[in-house]
């Protein structure tokens, strides 16, 4: 995918200011604006813990938050397969309204297209979002040696829930998506003055993907401690059975926050007192070298490299 993006799209139309972060930062008339876009093609469209609508709003909000922006407004575009029940769309719209209210954003405009049966799978949603940058310079390239890495909660919930629901492997509510907007945590951190250098929402590719991206962009090394990373027992069991490592599984309601060492405790306490950050923990730190390398101290006390996942672990997860 990275090659596709670099060799076709970036090579095709990007200028020098093209952002490889989740949001672009634009300077408009003296204000710094974060601008992001995302598409949602998750299958199935309803799953334990959420639906495509909640995912669309939360995902867009979280992308803006990673740029340290206060999310303001979202535009939503629908591509609907002919014949999809109206009740399904009403349900998705209601879910989007609830999530937007929770996140403190408004859906301000949109577009709708209906395509013939078979030309799309039920519904695809594309969003664009804008926010106001609260603190400039927060980016994947800004991690500094010594920074502590905070993870706001358990990993693997969303990807596992969607996989089990799609393949009908297990009919259970025990494993549910964590889809959620993380406005409370991030705005709380910004207000507190904590020196946050980088943030990422570890969606497709899991924390392995995000940590490797940050290590590469910042030209630093990252070390994490497996014992500090929470995986719910049911998620762990499902991943073990399927031969998948939770590090590679998508999350939709978690944030990786890289913060100066002296502010780590304060950041942790802000996260833990928020609605979706109760299980937050400091899971690792940034080291100077070797650049781009992510290593894990395993639960048994040995050390090994955590590479980026290659290829699609599971398609249409978000």
């Amino acid at each position, binding site marked *: 995918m990275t*090659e596709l993006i670099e060799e076709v799209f970036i090579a095709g139309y990007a200028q020098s200011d093209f952002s490889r972060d989740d949001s672009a930062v634009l300077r408009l008339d003296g204000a710094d604006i974060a601008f992001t876009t995302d598409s949602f093609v998750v299958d199935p469209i309803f799953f334990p813990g959420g639906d495509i609508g909640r995912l669309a709003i939360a995902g867009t909000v979280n992308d803006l938050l990673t740029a340290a922006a206060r999310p303001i407004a979202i535009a939503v575009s629908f591509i609907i397969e002919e014949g999809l029940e109206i009740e399904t769309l009403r349900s998705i719209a209601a879910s989007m309204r609830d999530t937007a209210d929770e996140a403190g954003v408004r859906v301000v405009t949109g577009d709708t297209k209906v395509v013939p049966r078979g030309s799309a799978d039920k519904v695809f949603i594309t969003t664009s979002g804008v926010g106001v940058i609260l603190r400039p310079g927060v980016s994947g390239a800004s991690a500094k040696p010594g920074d502590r890495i905070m993870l706001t909660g358990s990993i693997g919930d969303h990807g596992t829930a969607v996989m089990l629901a799609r393949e009908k492997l297990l009919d259970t509510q025990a494993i549910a998506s964590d889809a959620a907007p993380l406005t409370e945590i991030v705005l709380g951190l910004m207000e507190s003055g904590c020196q946050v250098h980088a943030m990422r929402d570890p969606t497709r590719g899991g924390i392995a993907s995000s940590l490797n991206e940050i290590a590469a962009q910042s030209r630093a090394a990252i070390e994490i401690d497996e014992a500090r990373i929470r995986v719910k027992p049911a998620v762990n069991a499902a991943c*073990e059975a399927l031969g998948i490592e939770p590090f590679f599984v998508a999350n939709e309601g978690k944030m990786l926050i890289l913060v100066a060492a002296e502010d780590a405790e304060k950041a942790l306490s802000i996260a833990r007192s928020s609605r979706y950050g109760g299980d937050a923990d400091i899971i690792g730190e940034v080291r100077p070298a070797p650049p781009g390398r992510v290593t894990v101290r395993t*639960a*048994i*006390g*040995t050390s*090994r490299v955590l590479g980026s996942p290659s*290829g699609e672990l599971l398609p249409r997860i978000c």
Partner: protein
Amino acid sequence: MRLSDEFRDPALVRELAERIGRFSGMSATIMEVCGTHTMSVARFGLKSLLPPGVSLISGPGCPVCVTDQRDIDAYLAIGALPGVTLACFGDMIRVPGSATSLERLRAEGADVRVVYSPIDAVDTARGDPGRQVVFFGVGFETTIPAIALAVKVAAEGKVSNFLVYCAHKTIPAALRALLATDELRVSGLLLPGHVTTIIGSGAYSFLADQLGVTCAVAGFEPVDILLAVEAILARIEQGTAAIDNAYPRAVRAEPNPRAAELIDEVFVTSDALWRGLGSIPGSGVALAAKYAVHDASLRFADTLAAVPPPKQTTCKCGDVLRGITRPSQCPHFGTTCTPTDPIGPCMVSSEGACAAAYKYEGV
């Protein structure tokens, strides 16, 4: 009992590492022959716990990696035919054939489905009588009984459009062939825990009795693997050879009777083609005559006869599988051959030695 917690207990691991540490003067090469062992060793960083003179290498244990290029090309040729649905385990999707891969075939419009269980492929066939659903029979004795059951279910339900392209392999004959060559010097073998729940530890007696190689059947948690390594090193120190069972909670000396019954009914022993090892007599299975209607190699004989011989590549998977080359010693490793752009199956399979080295030890 929370098995994965107990058998990953850091205190137990430390104790075992210390016990193994007393073999520090010894020089020994232990080979594992199971893709899941490859992954477990890598994921838990177990090599770092072994004394300096003891090395752990990977042999032909990855079922995807040992699948010969000819079998992959044959299966891809069947998939290009009209009216054919290919059903396989997820691991096979990105394995490169001579001209294409299942992933590319699927992107070009072929009907390729990943299944978690071969019975799912029988259901697919039953639900779509107009198509021929061809399952790629890849895997060792752990998987063979499941395919046997699927074939039996298909036969009983007269689902004649369910077929198997059988490329299954069996471990004991391959080990005999591997150890008969002079190029490999192993002091001991870690034997695959789950294959052995099917065939019983007695199936390996010849390794100790006739070939003088000491072995230990191992489970997959860190404590399991370290216990097995300790057993092997103790035997080497004593100068004896035996088949030790270090996985007694799952493995017995005798084969699993239900599995044995199913396999005997549906399959016959045959020769098999192994990547890197060539044709090994008696190391595979083929469908018994009674189930010939489900045999893809018979149904598509004409197509298969027209498949050209595989393209020669400079891939060193064969040498890696024989344990004579480490992944990092291959000139392609990490440069022209990576998980996203693999030249051979050892890099693309999630259990391949090259993929494990790349992901867990870094380039």
